[in-house]
């Protein structure tokens, strides 16, 4: 362990976050006991839309669920074997396999039987999304299923016509939700959910922006447990409230130079999902004073960003900050579509160059010394373009560690080999 330079302490809000997450999975599992509704869909689903059905509507989003399964290696292996035995290929999205395996086994990773949703509500940008819930629907005996195509290209090209394409699907979706659940739809609840989602995702960007500080107030391993709210219930008031408190605490850490890693001497970023069962890699780096301050993934899977007047990235100005008064269903959906489709993490589905540019921006603005690139065999979507990104870093003279693995399938990750590669990277960074 290298010498401590900064004061460090755990986050005060940590246990509150843990409880909130636990509550979320419990709310979903027990929704029916209180007459509530359950739906399942992707982490990028337009989750604010079903909120118009009532406050007792709870969701289970597949990717964070798949990651929670991955963290439990024994259960993950059983899930993968179960779904592979049904003929699903090993090179499919690892979250999808973990989720579907859990359905097949009829086991919920948090205990008990797998809670069957009342409907599926999802979006489609990665090739796995729509199929995922279509198959889940079949496996669960024909659960009603609605999918919205959001593959509308780069945000620069998101014109009136493209927005209308999305909004019309959402309008149809609302009719479908009413028919499927037999409930009346409340536009006021939708409007509030849109405001909440915009604020929550902008707040997350603000929190990540604070990590530009040296020493970094947060390390990426901790951030993984915090961004997750934006992938499960980003439209709910309790998340806005949680992120406001978190932002205040992180600001306080910045003001008082409280570090995530007391011996910080080098800063790195990663790129996409980590191998969830092996987060110890981050702790290993920290023994040498190397802290991962984030990634394009951690910052912008949910974070809403914009380029500020000084040319740097900052939290996106929310509709409420802009004084936009949302009064109709259609307007709410338009605002939400504009907000959602600008998400940086969606842009690199269309452009390797754009992804490299965003990552290079993070390197510059977050004062990063090196980059770890996970050739993640478990995700066809977010691992797009990694080889090209590597070349961009190489051209910019930034040390890079590419390593192979899988975010959710430990059979494709070799801890010892990766640690050896990390050792070489540490030497390259001049800390070992």
């Amino acid at each position, binding site marked *: 362990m290298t010498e401590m330079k900064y004061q460090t302490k755990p986050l005060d809000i940590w246990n509150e976050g843990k409880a909130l997450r636990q509550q979320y999975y419990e709310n979903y599992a027990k929704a029916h006991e209180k007459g509530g509704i359950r739906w399942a869909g992707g982490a990028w689903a337009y989750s604010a839309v079903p909120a118009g059905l009532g406050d007792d509507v709870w969701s289970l989003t597949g990717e964070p669920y798949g990651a929670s399964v991955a963290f439990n290696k024994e259960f993950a292996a059983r899930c993968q074997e179960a779904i592979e035995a049904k003929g699903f290929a090993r090179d499919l999205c690892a979250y999808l396999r973990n989720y579907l395996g859990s359905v097949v086994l009829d086991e919920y990773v948090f205990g008990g039987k797998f809670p069957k949703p009342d409907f599926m509500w999802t979006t489609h940008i990665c090739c796995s999304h729509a199929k995922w819930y279509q198959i889940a629907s079949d496996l669960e005996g024909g659960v009603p299923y609605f999918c919205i195509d959001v593959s509308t290209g780069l945000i620069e090209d998101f014109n009136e016509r493209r927005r209308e394409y999305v909004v019309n699907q959402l309008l149809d979706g609302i009719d479908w939700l009413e028919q499927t659940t037999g409930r009346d739809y409340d536009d006021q609840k939708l409007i509030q959910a849109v405001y909440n989602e915009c604020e929550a995702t902008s707040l997350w960007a603000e929190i990540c922006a604070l990590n530009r500080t040296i020493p970094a107030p947060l390390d990426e391993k901790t951030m993984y447990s915090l961004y997750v709210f934006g992938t499960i219930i980003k439209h709910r008031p309790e998340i806005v409230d949680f992120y406001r408190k978190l932002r205040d605490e992180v600001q306080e850490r910045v003001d008082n130079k409280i570090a995530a890693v007391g011996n910080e001497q080098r800063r790195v970023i990663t790129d996409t999902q980590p191998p969830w069962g092996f987060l110890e890699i981050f702790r290993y780096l920290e023994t040498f004073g190397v802290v991962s301050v984030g990634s394009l993934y951690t910052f912008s899977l949910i974070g809403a960003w914009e380029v500020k007047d000084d040319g740097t990235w900052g939290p996106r100005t929310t509709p409420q900050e802009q004084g936009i008064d949302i009064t109709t269903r259609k307007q709410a959906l338009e605002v939400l579509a504009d907000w959602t489709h600008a998400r940086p993490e969606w842009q690199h589905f269309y452009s390797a160059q754009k992804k490299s540019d965003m990552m290079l921006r993070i390197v510059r603005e977050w004062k990063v010394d090196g980059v770890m690139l996970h050739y993640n065999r478990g995700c066809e979507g977010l691992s797009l373009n990694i080889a090209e990104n590597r070349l961009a870093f190489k051209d910019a003279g930034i*040390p890079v560690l590419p390593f*192979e693995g899988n975010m959710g399938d430990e059979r494709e990750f070799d801890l010892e080999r990766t640690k050896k590669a990390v050792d070489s990277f540490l*030497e390259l960074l001049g800390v070992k």
Partner: protein
Amino acid sequence: MITAGIDFGAKNVKVVILDDEKIVARGSALTGFDLKIAVKDASEMALKAAGLKLDEITHITETGIGQGSVAFAADSVSEVGANAKAGVKLLPSARTIIDVGAEEARAVKCDESGSMEDFVVNERCAAGAGAFVEAMARALEVELGQMGPMSLKATEAVPMNAQCTVFAESEVVSLIHAQTPKANIARAIHDAIAERVISMVRRLGITEDVLLVGGLAYDVGYVDSMKRGLGVEVHVPELPEYVSAYGAALVAQERAKE
């Protein structure tokens, strides 16, 4: 000052002892299942050859797969770091050092002082490493040592598409059944493995001079494939499988002076 470097390879453990920067002894032993026994055997061999006792060695640095398993090693260095150090010592103009061992291939780009600038390590599959050649020699039913000279006698380039050892083996069997001369198959195998390593090294950018080290550098057929594939001269030092251990011993010299 006497220092030593220990390299834990997948197949052999190698030890190099230095008096200042001069190599005074080498030792090696099969890695087997018990690393401690392999290290003991290799160290004893080297110490005996040097006429030294263990406590006369000022600093020992280890490298390779089993780092941390030798109680008497002071510290460790990565294989790419060790190769960069040793490579420049052996060939001062070397800037790209490619190391192909039994289970791994790696390459390092370095400056004139032997400091690492960038590196690549092969993916999890052994199809880019020496184990692949061994498996293919078995499929061809020839001694491993014959593969190189046989390959140089090839009269025709036969394409091999397989990217992995398992598929390559069935491809070799098909070639045998198609009555393809063994020499041509041997060359196809060397070309296939060289191609994989070269595509990996190209990610670094090839900066001359290129030095090839590791056990596979003994295989003249493979060296020839690398030369043709890279389109540049490929230098091979004496006793190429000891280069990482030598580099570790050089690092030990530096660290002992710190």
